[in-house]
Structure formats: structure tokens, C-alpha cells
């Protein structure tokens, strides 16, 4: 057996022990010590551990039916109407009873939140996975044959498991997104909602506008009224998803726009000191929560004046 094979055997043993019922602090310390011994131990362990975690998704194969919920007390008035969805190749024709919950303090679903600069991935029982971006508040509910999520604030990436019998719905203010199984992101800031499709098809239903079908590469942006649709290249789509890895990817955008993106993730806020700095075009990949490193780079690579004052970092282009 080669040294690497022996290490893999040890790593697998650690995973198996941790998977058991006898795990305790002492064992954790021993594992930490073994991991610290060499990078080879650590990468071998990470490789196996990531696979064992991915295997959690197999619970989607569990035979038990989606458990019907205990009927919720209907203490608030409901406004309901029937929405007829047109037959399409990728989306089955299903008459869906849609209910709009008028402004109420009763909010259904299990809560999920992230802090400023935090990122979190949740696995849902149906096999879907959601990743929450910075400062996001969401609720999810898989009861009574429905699959629902409510995006109250922030941004999330949805990787929805295909299930023609149970369409997945995302409610974001006045917009509602209905899918069967696909990948997309939704971002909400108050009444401004943006839906970007990466794979599959998505229907965007608004209270006032006609239903809208989005294809991969398309993004719908709505501010209260009817959404407008733009199309992006696969490269632009990949760039926009940098946050899933905790990075911001810039491809020739203004420093002002780049700063606005950073400011979503950091307590220290970048402020443009003059228009010359604001209009500077930059590119590159950066850690989203490392605004200090970015500011240092602006100084060292672009020669900008960077002054920190309390919770702001003011960036100016020197006049000469």
C-alpha cells in the first residue's frame, strides 16, 4: 500500500467514526491533530468528506410521501384566484390555485437568514438546494404537497429538484416565480425584484402584468410594475454567480458599480470621493468580504488615494 493509500484509509476511517454514535470532543481533538499533521491528510479528508456530505441528497429517494401539514388556522382574510398555465414542453399544464397573503404578521414557513457578508446553503427534503447570499431573509415550506419559498429580503440561488407533480414557487413581494425543476436566482430589495435563469424555464407571475416565461440567460427586473427582460451571455451569467463561491467577479465595470457590489457584503462601505474615481474601469476576481484588500489594491495598483474614516473608505483619484 502506498503512503497516499494508507492516508486515504485513515481519512475514511475518521469519516466512518464521525458518522457513528460515539463521537465526542476527545475524538474531535484527535481528528483535528491528525488533520494538522500535513496538508496531505487534510486534502484527503476534505475530498472524502465532501462526497459523504453530497450523499445526503440521497434522502430525496426516501419513500415516505410529502407529509400533509396540520391545517393552519386561517385567521387572516385570503384573496385567491385561479391561474391557468399554458401547456409547454418543459412545464406541465396544471391549474394552480394561487393565494395572495395580504399584509399580515402571520408568515408561514421555516425561517432562514444570513448576516451581512454571510453565505449559507440549505438542503430541502425534496432534494432541492438553496444558497442564501449576504443579508438575506427567507422562509421555506414543503407542507401539504406544496413546495414554497418566500424571499423577504436579499438574494438566493435556487437549484430545484425536478418534480412535475409539485411545482416549486418562490414568492418575492409582488412577483411570484413558478418552476418545476431548474436553476435560477432571485434578488429582492424592497419592491425591486430580479429573477435570472441559468437552466430550465421559469414563469414569472405578477399581480398586475401578464405571465412571463424566462429562458436560460434571461433576467427579468421588476420594480412594482411589469418586469423588463434582458439577456446575458453565459460568461456574464457565470460572473454574476461569483458570490456562490464568496467572490465578486468584475469584467470592465466602473469602480462605482464595483463599490456598490462590495457594499452589500461589508460593514465598511466604499465611497467615491470624486467622479474620476467613480468612472474608473476595473476587472478581476475578489473575495466579497475582503473590502480592505480591495481598497489596498486600488491604492497600490491604481494609485488612488484611499482614506478610511470610521465605517467608510473614501476613494479618490488624485487630481494632477
Amino acid at each position, binding site marked *: 500500500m*502506498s503512503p497516499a493509500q494508507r492516508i*486515504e484509509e485513515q481519512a475514511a*476511517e475518521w469519516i466512518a467514526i464521525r458518522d*457513528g454514535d460515539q463521537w465526542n470532543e476527545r475524538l474531535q481533538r484527535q481528528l483535528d491533530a491528525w488533520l494538522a499533521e500535513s496538508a*496531505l491528510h487534510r486534502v484527503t479528508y476534505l475530498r472524502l468528506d465532501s462526497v459523504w456530505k453530497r450523499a445526503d441528497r*440521497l434522502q430525496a429517494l426516501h419513500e415516505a410521501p410529502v407529509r400533509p401539514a396540520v391545517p393552519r388556522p386561517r385567521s387572516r382574510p385570503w384573496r385567491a384566484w385561479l391561474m391557468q398555465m399554458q401547456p409547454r414542453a418543459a412545464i406541465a399544464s396544471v391549474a394552480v390555485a394561487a393565494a395572495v397573503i395580504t399584509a399580515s404578521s402571520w408568515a408561514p414557513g421555516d425561517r432562514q437568514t444570513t448576516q451581512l457578508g454571510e453565505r449559507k446553503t440549505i438542503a430541502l427534503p425534496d*432534494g432541492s438546494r438553496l444558497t442564501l447570499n449576504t443579508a438575506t431573509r427567507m422562509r421555506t415550506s414543503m407542507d401539504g404537497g406544496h413546495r414554497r419559498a418566500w424571499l423577504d429580503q436579499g438574494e438566493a440561488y435556487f437549484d430545484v429538484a*425536478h418534480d412535475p407533480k409539485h411545482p416549486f414557487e418562490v414568492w418575492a413581494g409582488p412577483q411570484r416565480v413558478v418552476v418545476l*425543476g431548474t436553476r435560477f436566482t432571485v434578488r429582492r430589495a424592497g419592491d425591486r425584484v430580479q429573477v435570472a435563469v441559468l437552466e430550465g424555464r421559469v414563469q414569472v407571475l405578477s399581480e398586475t402584468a401578464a405571465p412571463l416565461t424566462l429562458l436560460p440567460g434571461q433576467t427579468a427586473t421588476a420594480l412594482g410594475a411589469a418586469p423588463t427582460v434582458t439577456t446575458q451571455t*453565459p460568461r456574464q451569467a457565470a460572473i454574476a454567480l461569483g458570490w456562490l463561491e464568496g467572490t465578486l467577479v468584475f469584467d470592465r465595470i466602473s469602480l462605482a458599480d464595483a463599490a456598490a457590489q462590495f457594499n452589500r457584503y461589508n460593514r465598511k462601505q466604499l465611497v467615491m470621493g470624486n467622479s474620476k474615481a467613480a468612472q474608473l474601469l476595473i476587472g478581476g476576481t475578489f473575495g466579497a468580504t475582503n473590502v480592505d484588500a480591495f481598497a489596498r489594491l486600488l491604492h497600490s495598483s491604481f494609485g488612488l488615494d484611499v482614506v478610511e474614516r470610521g465605517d467608510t473608505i473614501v476613494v479618490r483619484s488624485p487630481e494632477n
Partner: protein
Amino acid sequence: MTGKERDAWFVDQVLPLEPVLERFLRRNWRDADEIADLRQEVYARVYEHAVPARLESVQAFVLTTARHLLIDKARRGKIVSIEAYADLEAIDAVADEIGLERRLNARSELRLLQAALALLPPRCRQVVELRKIEGLSQREVADQMGITEDTVERQVSKGVRALADAMLKTGASADSALADDRSSSVHRGNA
């Protein structure tokens, strides 16, 4: 970057490149038995030496690290082979997009897992299924199967290694799963 962040970066950014790395190693190293060890050594070096914030392309970094490792090994083994030096496959630094878009959708991931599961020896497979699908604890698995907890632990250890090899190395089958997926229209590489 903290240890935890480095771990997450490694899992998110480097591990998905395993099929690419495997292909590279197989094409440029004669001894097939040594490939797994070489791969792990590349991972260790990448983990230790990468500066993630400064990397334009993780793929290029991984393959460059692999290339240097092979050259080192060739030198030390005194292998007189022009291949080892000159003809090492050109590092194709095409797009991080491949890394980002290689993310499998929920359906393909489940299919990949099921395919990997099907390759396990029967007892090992049953243990993994009881743990992961039915959610039984190791003690409950032992009771249900009439075996000791030690045996369950051994089967988990075997199972995780087999699953890793099936899932991480065969990015090829994951790609074709994506290509078959009718609803997928994400472009790869040269869009």
C-alpha cells in the same frame, strides 16, 4: 483566509476539477498505479500554496502544479523520457466558466449519486442506503442488518472511498448527464 475558508475554497473550487486533473495525469504519466498518489500530492500542494484571491484561473493553477510535480518526479526518477519534459500537455487555461458552470443541477447530482451507489458491493451499498436514504443511525443499521457496529463502520469507510472514486473521477459521465438533460442550455467552454 482562515482555515475554514481555505477548506471551503478547496471543496468548492478545486475538487470539481478532479476529472480534468485525472485526464492530465493519465496522459502525461506512464505508471497508472501512481496516478491516485500523484493526484493527492497535487491537491496537497495546491492547498498549501494557492493564494485564492490572486488566482485568475484555478484550473490553470492546478494543472501547472501537476505539471511541476511530474517534472520533479521525472527528474528524481531519472526517467530518460523526452515526453516527461517537453510534451507535457499544454495547459489550457480556458475559462473559469467551466468550473462555475460545471456545477451539477439537483437532478444530475442525484443521478450521479445513484449511479455511484449501484457500483458498491451489496452489503456496503445496503449500509450506505440505510444511513443516507432511510436516515438510520449506525447503531440502528447494525440492528436492522444483524451485524456489529464495527462492521457498519468498516462498510461506511469502504463506501465513502468507493463513492468518491465513482463521483469525482467520472466528471465525464456527469457531463454527458448534463448533455442529455433536455432542459439544460448552459454553454460550456468555447461559447
